[in-house]
């Protein structure tokens, strides 16, 4: 009995129907990014269902409280505009919950009716609804453009646009824009920066917020996150290093044009090669020596890559998710001599195929790579039906394919609704690379132990 019993190998081209998407909509990305600001309440300017769905999905992914509010549009507001709703929301939020900052994002509803957030927030200020010292920022995130990744990117850009202050001073400090990675990854990036003695402001930063400890007392605004004051000073830092072009390039460019801060954008440091680039870039920017600790961490990763090479070699992999993650993962898999043969993202990104090709360096000649409309998990599953793979890497929805096709499966990306770990253990850096290796080996070797014949069942692997 198959879970996805209607999926067959024979391909039909689809133009209008998306089945089992490999993306979701902008506002949830904006909400996740806004949670990386200290003392911030994300606010969804739309129907209350949007906010409810986004909070639910983020909560299932993190098993943590995800606080956000909504303008709660009714049919009346859909006709007459949502100004009254947003004004009332701002007043109610500051009076009741007292955040430092509200980060408003739009939805398909408020975008379609054309609400002007600049004007509405201006009015809120005029009417004294925004207490002194508090901030309200906003990003335009229509659900019918791009994907959740676009929404994340737009909110990070809005943080720069509305909070960074141009300065004549240049501090010996850099800006680090981590891209859409997990709280664990952000914590790891900060650790690497610390080990390399590079002073940095990282934004957004969800560590400490979406992995907060059980203390017996709920804090609506936990300790983590980049503060509004730190964001203001990003305009005085001397350099910006952005990770992941799809998510972080626009914020880096905004900082460059607004505050004249030189920037560069590299791939997210997942896997050996991308982490090498990251570390070398930090060395160059910070004019520091690469400490022995980091080189040892690299050595441990390479050690496992060589020790366990036989289990990776030539293994066919299907992966789906977000462009930045997929590019770095692809590079890592190729460095392991694996074959990432099917790669799918629903996020439209014109740079995607070229970046994947660059990561592959010709090592997977027959790979199928798709991005944008109708590039979905149904398509990928059809490819798998045509010619199977040895490993699946992607979000939780892959478990249906994994079970039907009896294929080892590593959960990576967003959302992961049925396992923990991603918020606590990083996948970035050399340490993160080790974790990915462990997860892939566990999945593939557990499968080998379960399926091998009795006579070839091995004690030592």
């Amino acid at each position, binding site marked *: 009995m198959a879970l996805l019993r209607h999926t067959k190998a024979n391909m039909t081209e689809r133009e209008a129907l998306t089945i089992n998407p490999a993306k979701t909509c902008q506002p949830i990305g904006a909400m996740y990014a806004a949670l990386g600001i200290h003392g911030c309440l994300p606010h969804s300017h739309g129907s209350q269902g949007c906010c409810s769905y986004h909070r639910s999905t983020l909560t299932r992914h993190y098993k943590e409280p995800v606080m956000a509010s909504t303008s709660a549009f009714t049919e009346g507001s859909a006709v007459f505009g949502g100004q009254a709703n947003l004004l009332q929301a701002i007043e*109610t939020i500051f009076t009741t919950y007292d955040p430092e900052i509200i980060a408003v994002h739009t939805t398909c509803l408020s975008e379609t009716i054309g609400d002007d957030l600049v004007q509405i927030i201006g009015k809120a200020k005029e009417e004294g609804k925004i207490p002194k010292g508090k901030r309200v920022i906003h990003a335009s995130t229509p659900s019918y453009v791009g994907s959740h990744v676009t929404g994340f990117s737009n909110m990070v850009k809005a943080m720069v646009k509305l909070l960074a202050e141009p300065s004549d001073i240049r501090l010996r400090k850099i800006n680090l824009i981590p891209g859409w990675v997990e709280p664990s990854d952000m914590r790891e990036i900060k650790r690497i920066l610390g080990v390399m003695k590079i002073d940095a402001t990282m934004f957004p930063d969800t560590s400490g917020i979406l992995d907060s400890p059980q203390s*017996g007392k709920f804090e609506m605004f936990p300790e983590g996150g980049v503060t509004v004051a730190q964001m203001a000073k990003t305009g005085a830092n001397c350099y910006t290093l952005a990770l992941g072009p799809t998510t972080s390039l626009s914020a880096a460019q905004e900082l460059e044009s607004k505050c004249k801060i030189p920037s560069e954008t590299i791939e997210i440091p997942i896997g050996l090669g991308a982490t090498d680039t990251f570390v070398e870039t930090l060395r160059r920017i910070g004019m520091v020596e690469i400490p022995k600790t980091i080189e040892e961490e690299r050595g441990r990763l390479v050690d496992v890559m060589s020790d366990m090479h036989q289990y990776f070699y030539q293994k066919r992999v299907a992966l789906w998710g977000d462009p930045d993650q997929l590019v770095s993962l692809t590079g890592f898999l190729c460095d392991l001599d694996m074959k990432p043969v099917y790669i799918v993202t*629903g996020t439209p990104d014109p740079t995607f195929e070229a970046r994947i090709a660059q990561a592959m360096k010709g090592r997977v000649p027959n790979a199928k790579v798709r991005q944008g409309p109708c590039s979905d998990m149904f398509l990928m599953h059809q490819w798998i039906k045509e010619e199977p793979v040895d490993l699946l890497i992607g979000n939780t929805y892959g478990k249906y394919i994994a079970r039907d096709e009896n294929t080892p499966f590593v959960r990576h990306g967003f959302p992961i609704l049925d396992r923990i770990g991603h918020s606590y253990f990083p996948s970035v850096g050399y340490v993160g690379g080790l974790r990915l290796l462990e997860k892939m080996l566990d999945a593939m070797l557990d499968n080998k132990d379960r399926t091998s014949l009795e006579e070839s069942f091995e004690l030592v692997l």
Partner: protein
Amino acid sequence: MKTYPTTEAVRDELVKSYPAKVAKKRLGQIVVNKKDEAGLVPEIKANSRSIPGIISQRGCCYAGCKGVVLGPTRDIINLVHGPIGCSFYAWLTRRNQTRPEGSESENYMTYCFSTDIKDENIVFGGEKKLRKAIQEAYDLFHPKAIGVFATCPVGLIGDDIHTVAREMKEKFGDCNVFGFSCEGYKGVSQSAGHHIANNQLFKHVIGLNDQPPEGKFKVTLLGEYNIGGDSFILEEIFEKCGMTLVATLSGNSTIAQFERAHTADLNCVMCHRSINYIADMIEKKYGVPWFKVNFIGAKATAKSLRKIADYFEDAGLKEKVEKLIAEEMAEVEKVAADVRTRCEGKTAMLFVGGSRAHHYQELFAEIGMKTLAAGYEFAHRDDYEGRNVLPKIKVDADSRNIEELDVKADPVKFRQRATPEEMTSRGVPHRDYDGMMPEMENNALVVDDISEHETEELLRIYKPDIFCAGIKEKYGIQKNGIPCKQLHNYDYGGPYAGFKGAINFYLEIDRMVNASVWKMISPPWRKNDMPELEADYVKT
């Protein structure tokens, strides 16, 4: 024994930090359950707008329509016309279980379908893309039916999904295509979506097949969605009693069941809020009466089964029902007695849904736990105060826009199974629901559409032993060291319906309120910190 401030004082405390206008509105929805001598309960201002910014539990109209009512049916392709998110978030997240008959039988519940509309569709309209998507779905899967769901922007740009659906239905000939105008901004909560789903199923599906299944006692189960396998338990109970389940709306269901739903002789309503419309309409058009049942709680299950047996006035059925109750209750009582030794006297709060905050109070009572406060997320006054308030409910602007179908008796198919008088003479009620408040203790606190702020205040003031809510509330509540039981998705457990479900629930609550982890939150080096030291010092 814990002592609490008066309920009136708590009520004031909950709204203290709101802006004045917000506080005034909320006080209409926060009620002290003071019953008068006739047992009448006070009025509650339910089914009204949530205040922007307040952080409510509620979702939208689309969630109630597609997610709740249509979600659990396996052989309809539910195609969401809108940007990708709406369909994505409702993809497999409600835990509706289903059992296809065979390995080739249709099951689309594991799939997510969307037109994924883009900005050019917003500008130039999305009907063309919708038409194409329906065609592609038909070509790929040849389903029996395709449901089309409108999302917020689709309503605003004026796509006529109903005309598209009708045209495609005519074109295919062997596939029922129908639309739901369930844009997220309609109504004030999921509730509007339930009503819209009811209307469209009644218009386009129910009544298409007049051939009833074989059986002497033909019933439907309305408003049971098979979360965590509840429907499976109930199907087993009905079968053991010799009753024929004509249709369930909509747990573990197929469209064929819906098409023949009107051929039952009795409609049993579980979730009154989400499905009473269909129950009423079937009665008007086809003459099938309904009454409220509740299969959450062992005693409630027994009571509901007896009610059904009384309706059919059949000695054989009554005997089977009594035999089943006797068999099942032995085990139920054994487990309840054991669990009671660890749970008796503990306290619960329930803030969830449109019927569960009521139904689950029964289960807590069966293990000796007291409900301090409760409220619904999206219910109406009749779910709180009972259906006798229906004539008094004022229809406001938000409800007026939800269509009320004008249903008349079908000249051919109407057959009155039992008159209200006959039902009275059989000792069973007709179209009854007394609501949650009459069954709650005098002076208990009732809060409609509770906010995050009010939730935190209640936890602080009452420190209940368990709080029941949903996924968004769960981890914030638990950070306070108080377990939260999710009553939307059962925390991936269940089933909780019927006798076996009751046992599952007792054991689950026992696990949660007595879990070791709650005693380990403070590290050992903090256990001897000031407060307890002081307390000891004061004692000596």
